[in-house]
């Protein structure tokens, strides 16, 4: 997993509540058996005027110029500013894969759906929760100021705006450490192999029907 330490990136505002994972990456793209290549189909139904299917040349498709990601001033954005309950719906990890593949490194919102939030951390994407009033402020600033960059410092848990104002955010200490060091969860868990085996040995006589071998 890529490390996340500090970024300075362009922010783009997606002004909708309850953005679901079907909107982030529509189901026809879930047929892929790979982890990469979802970026061109991020927000496919909002981003393009035609209907997208896997295998199309996305560079030739008609863009919806009203959709915020298509506005020239937001090209190359790395920080997505969103509303409450972002990422609700299905558990598809294709959603963070698509955001990551597009180039996003962080998402700021008043709240995230649980599974989506978890999936982000597994892919080096930082979901940041700020209170609604702060998110409102950022929406106003981003919209009013072309080229609005934010600096996100994970170590310090701090977002700094171009005029120097600062927002502090909370992040789970374990997840923070994994992101800062690019640690792989499986590798960490496998340090506990002995405890897993001991658990099984202890649990098996209590509930033997859960340990049937076929």
């Amino acid at each position: 997993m890529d490390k996340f330490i500090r970024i300075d990136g362009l922010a783009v505002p997606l002004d909708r509540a309850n953005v679901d994972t079907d909107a982030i990456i529509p189901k026809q793209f879930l047929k892929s058996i790979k982890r990469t290549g979802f970026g061109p189909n991020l927000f496919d139904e909002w981003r393009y005027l035609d209907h997208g299917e896997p295998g199309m040349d996305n560079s030739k498709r008609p863009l919806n110029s009203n959709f915020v990601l298509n506005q020239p001033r937001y090209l190359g954005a790395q920080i997505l500013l969103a509303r409450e309950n972002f990422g609700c719906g299905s558990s598809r990890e294709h959603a963070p894969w698509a955001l990551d593949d597009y180039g996003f490194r962080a998402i700021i919102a008043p709240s995230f759906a649980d599974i989506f939030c978890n999936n982000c951390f597994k892919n080096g994407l930082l979901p940041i929760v700020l209170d609604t009033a702060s998110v409102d402020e950022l929406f106003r600033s981003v919209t009013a100021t072309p080229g609005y960059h934010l600096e996100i410092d994970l170590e310090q848990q701090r977002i700094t705006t171009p005029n120097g104002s600062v927002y502090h955010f909370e992040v789970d200490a374990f997840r923070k450490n994994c992101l800062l060091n690019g640690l792989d969860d499986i590798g960490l868990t496998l340090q506990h192999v002995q405890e897993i085996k001991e658990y099984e040995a202890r649990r098996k006589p209590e509930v033997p029907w859960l340990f049937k071998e076929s």
Partner: protein
Amino acid sequence: MSTQTLYDKLWNSHVVHKEPDGTTLIYIDRHLVHEVTSPQAFEGLRLAGRKPWRIASMLAVADHNVPTTDRTHGITDPISRLQVDTLDDNCDELGITEFRMSDVRQGIVHVIGPEQGATLPGMTVVCGDSHTSTHGAFAALAFGIGTSEVEHVMATQCLLMKKARAMQVLMEGALGKGVTAKDLVLAVIGKIGTAGGTGYAIEFAGSAIRALSMEGRMTVCNMAIEAGARAGMIAADDTTISYLKGRPFAPQGELWDKATDYWRTLHSDEGAQFDKVVRLDAAEIKPQVTWGTSPEMVVAVDGNIPDPTRESDPVKRSSINLSLKYMGLQPNTPITAIQIDKVFIGSCTNARIEDLRAAAEVVRGKHVAANVKLAMAVPGSGLVKQQAEREGLDKVFIEAGFEWREPGCSMCLAMNADKLEPGERCASTSNRNFEGRQGPGGRTHLVSPEMAAAAAIAGHFVDVRNF
């Protein structure tokens, strides 16, 4: 320990290791696998040179991509076929039990797990699918995971997580005639919102829940995720135990007796403390219909489409406006005035035998309205289909003008050929009314099987209580 909630009991019995900050390694008893969220996990495992920790904990089935029409020639869409073939190959290579498309036991993963007795009380159950919350109906701790976690469970039999807060949704009272488990859970979502359960594990309790069949309880827990909660659960009781008796993966003989003794302890203790309690009077709940593009946008069938000018919160008002535009609806329209184009009875929410029986009773001897272009009944599994056919329900549906299909996820998420065309409006027994969920530009109204069936006959929504 003094009094514990059901969630405490399930959590505590699966702790392998706990860090001082609360990050916990939780042991997973059952890992259900389907074709969409597993290929990258199998690939990751292979690239790292790892093997699954406990093959016997896994049960695999293809459900999202499978055709619901004649399957004798396989899957025609080459991309869907590759995904299903990849699952078959991975299961063959590693010796994982899989119900292939030609197997009568094949079906939607959340229907076949319980049907086979592969979901049992006291288990932790995971699957790379958010509707894994369904299995909590059996007093199991069941939740959806992403593909990285699928790989993590394969490699270690564990997951790293922090304990959620506990919410109790208490529903006392008897459900009125024509009011179902689906209406109960839609009413809960309407009350607490789609983020109301975020960060919580929800236990559904009260006399209305105890009175439900296992099928009804599964419908309720299935949609816990639509209330934002990864896990929903219900205490084990006689209903749970009699459902499981004799199922292929359930314990037998002496083990059955030992198991049932344990299962009877799987309830919240008297006086157990929850972080939040939500109460609903079950007797007050009417049949529910969603009108928007989020499951919380729901009203009773005798209600109207809301008027955004009466909403003071600007973010909510904007959501209502966007939804009404997408749905092609006008404020203040009575729900019963909404005409429909298609009807879908199926999905992991409502494709079990009881759902099909209830819908069949509504359409028996009647015919689908002329304006309804397609009405389909899609059983949740091959065994549900077989049972329904033994009872003659297939004929009831077909004579009423429905199509009777092969089992799978079908038009719940339209990954196969079953989908809405742009602008088409559907009465659907599924779980999500998101934009494009049932096909690009499609408009979904979530309802119970009885309400979907009645809408098929009338051509518009009707109050099934007076139908």
